[in-house]
C-alpha cells in the first residue's frame, strides 16, 4: 500500500512524458509523475479517479503502443507517455426531443449512426477501452436494435472517447453507447412512485404540509 523501500526511500522510475525525461516514484500515477516532473501544458486532467475520461494518454513500452487514462496508469521504467489532445467535436447529431415515439428508434439510429452496421470486428475499440468494456459487442447490440442491452454493456463508460479514435469506420462507439442508454430512459423509464408524486404535485395535494412523524 505504500511504495517505499524498507529503509524509507522511494524507488525511482525513469520515463518520458510529452518527450521530457521525468524521474518519478514507484506507485505514482502518470498524472502525479507529470506534476512531480514539472511537465508543462498538461491541461487534460480532471477527477483523478478514472471517471471523467479527460486524461487520455498514449503509452509506448518498447515497440508496444497502447492508450489509457493517465490517472489510472502507474509509472513504469522506460515508458514513453504522450498526453493526447481532446477528442474532436462529435460528428453524429440528434436531439431526443425530436423523436416522435419509441417505434422509430431503430430507424433513427441507422440514420444517425450509419457506420455502426459496418463494424469490421477489428477489436480496436475493445483494446482501447480503459474500463474494459466489450465495446464491439455493445455496438453490435445497438445495431440490432437492442438498446437496453447495449446501454448496459456501456454502463461504465466514462466518455474518454478513446474507442472513437480507434475505430477505422468512425462509428463513435462511446456515443452509440450513450445514445442507447438515453433512448432507454427517455422512452421506457416510467416509474410509478415518481409519476404518482408528480400527479399529486400537479393537483397540489402535497403543497399543504403533512403531519410529520417526529415533529
Amino acid at each position, binding site marked *: *500500500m*505504500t511504495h517505499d523501500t524498507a529503509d524509507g526511500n522511494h524507488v525511482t522510475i525513469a520515463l518520458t512524458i510529452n518527450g521530457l525525461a521525468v524521474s518519478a516514484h514507484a*506507485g*505514482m*500515477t502518470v498524472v*502525479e509523475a507529470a*506534476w512531480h516532473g*514539472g*511537465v508543462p*501544458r498538461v*491541461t*487534460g*486532467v*480532471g*477527477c*483523478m*479517479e*478514472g*471517471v*471523467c475520461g*479527460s486524461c487520455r494518454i498514449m503509452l509506448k513500452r518498447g515497440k508496444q503502443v497502447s492508450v489509457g487514462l493517465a*490517472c*489510472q496508469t*502507474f509509472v513504469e521504467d522506460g515508458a514513453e507517455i504522450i498526453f493526447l489532445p*481532446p477528442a474532436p*467535436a*462529435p460528428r453524429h447529431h440528434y*436531439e*431526443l*426531443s425530436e423523436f416522435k415515439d419509441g417505434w422509430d428508434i431503430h430507424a433513427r439510429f441507422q440514420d444517425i449512426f450509419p457506420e455502426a452496421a459496418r463494424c469490421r470486428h477489428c477489436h480496436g475499440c475493445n483494446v482501447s477501452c480503459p*474500463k474494459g468494456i466489450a465495446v464491439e459487442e455493445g455496438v453490435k447490440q445497438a445495431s440490432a436494435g437492442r438498446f437496453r442491452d447495449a*446501454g448496459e454493456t456501456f*454502463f*461504465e*463508460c*466514462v*466518455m474518454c472517447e478513446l474507442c472513437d479514435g480507434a475505430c477505422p469506420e468512425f462509428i463513435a462507439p462511446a*456515443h452509440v453507447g*450513450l445514445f442507447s*442508454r*438515453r433512448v*432507454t*430512459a*427517455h422512452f421506457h*423509464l416510467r*416509474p*410509478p*412512485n*415518481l409519476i*404518482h*408524486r*408528480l400527479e399529486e*404535485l400537479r393537483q397540489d395535494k*402535497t403543497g399543504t*404540509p*403533512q403531519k*410529520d*412523524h*417526529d*415533529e
Partner: protein
Amino acid sequence: MMSNGISLAEALARYRADSNLAPPPALTDKDSLLNTYHPDHLRDSVVKLTVGPNAGDSCQRELAALLQAETFIDEADLAGVPVTDVDVLVIGGGGAGCAAALTAAEKGARVLLATKLRLGDSNTVMAEGGIQAAIEPEDSIQRHIQDTLRGGHHIGNPELVAALAADGPNVLRWLIQLGMQFDQAPSGDLHTRKAGGMSTPRLVHCRDYTGLEMMRVLREAVTQHRGIEVWEQSPAVELLSNETGEKCVGAVLTSLLDNRLRIVRTRSVILATGGLGRLHLNGFPTSNHLGATGDGLVLAYRIGAKLCELDSFQYHPTGLLHPSHLAGKLVTEGLRAAGCLLVNALGQRFIDELQPRDVVCAAILRECHEGRGVRVNEQHVGVWLDTPRLERAQPGLLEAQFPNLMSRTRIAGVDPRVQPLLTHPTLHYQNGGVSINVDGASTVPGLYAVGEVSGGIHGRNRLMGNALLEIISFGRRAGVAATANRDRGPKKVTLEHVNRARRALTIANMPMTQRTPLVLPDYAAGGIWKR
C-alpha cells in the same frame, strides 16, 4: 493533533469481519463533539473579513486571503481583446452549468458555456451516492424540507430549501427525459435509499455512478444543442461591470492553451464554477476534481456580491487513506446507507454511521485523536469502513451495487470484500457561497450563481443527495431567470468594480501581493497558467 493510534499491522491482526459488535455509545452531546473535533472549529482557522460586502463576517483563513486579493486584469490588458456577444454566459461545465445552459437554450437564449477544463470535468461526475427527491408514498416535500433544514443546523434559508425540495420530482422527470437512467425496484418504482440525516428513504441513484450517469447525459445534451456554444480550457479570470461597477455585464476569459484573453459581453452571467477542495483548507486532502479552486467566490466577491457561511465546509467522513494515489478520494456514503459500519482500531463501533456528515466526521477525528485510530504512519491515521462485514451480511452487494468502488480499488490491488477500507475525513464541499434567491440571482444585478458556488441551501452541513438535486433545480431556475432578463444589454463593459475593490484594499492597508482567482492549484499549474 493526532496521537499515535494502533499500527496498521496490529489493527489488521485484530480485525475480524465476524466479530460481535456492540451498538455505538449514545451520542449525548452533539454540539460539544462538533465544537471539539470538526475542522471548522480548529483554532486559528477562521478570521474576520476586512473589506468587501462581507466585511466583519467570519471566513476560513485561507479563503479570506483569496477573497481579499489583487486581480490579474487591468484596463490596459483589455485593449484590442476580441469581444463575443451572447445572451447568457455560463461559467462552469459541471452539472449546474450544463443544466443552466440547456434551460436557457430551451428558452431561446444564445448561450456560451465556458469551462476551465473539459466539459464535464467537475465534482458532479464523481458524485456516487445519488440525488434526493421525495417520491416515496410515506415521504413528502415537507419532510424533505425539514430534514434538509435540520441537517444544516437550521441555518439554511427556508425559502431556498422549500424551492429545492419542491423541485425534486420534476428534476427527476427532466433528467429522465434527457435520457438519464436510475435504478429501479422490481415493481418499476425508482429504488430509494435512506442516507445520513434522512427521516425516510429518499435517495434515488444509478448504482454508485449517479454523477457519471448524470454528467455524461448532460454533456451529450449540451454538445448536441444547437443553441449552446462551448469553450473548453477557458477559465474566467475576471467579471466585467457597467460604468458604475454595480451590474455584471460579462467576463474576461483566458485560454489554458494559448493564454490569450477574450471578452464576453452579455446580459446575464451564471456562475457555476463549483467548490474549492483543491485549496486543501486546513491541510486536508480533498475529494474534489482538479479545477475546484474557489474561482467563482473570488470573482463574485470582487464585483460586490454578498457571500454566506464562509467558515463552514463539509469534510466527508470516509475519504480513502490509501492507496496513496487515491488519498482523499471518496468512499460513497451509499455504502453506509446500505449498512456498512465504521469500526475503530480496537474493533469497536463509535458512532451511528447515519448521523449527518459533520457529526460522523467529528467522531472519526475524535477516535484518531484519542489513540483509537489505525496508524499508517505519523501523518496518516484513520478508521475502518467495514466492507467485509457488509459483504458477509449481503453477499454480492458490493459488486452489484458499487461497481465504481470495486473498479477503483481493483487497479490498486485492494479487495474491499476481504479487507476493510482505511478511511479518514476529506475536504469535500463548500456549504456556503454566493448568497442567492430562488432564481439563483446574486445581490449583484446580472450575476447568478448556481450549484456549489452558491450558498444558503445547506446551512452549515449538506445532506447526501442534495447537491445533485441543487445543481439541476437551481441550474434550471437560473437558466430561466437569466433568459427572462430582457434589458438591452451592456453599452459599455468596464473594470470599475475592480478599481473599487482595489481602492478598498489600499485604504484598509491590505497586502496586494497575491493575485486571484487561482485557476489551478500550484502543484498542477506548471507551465499552464501564468499568474
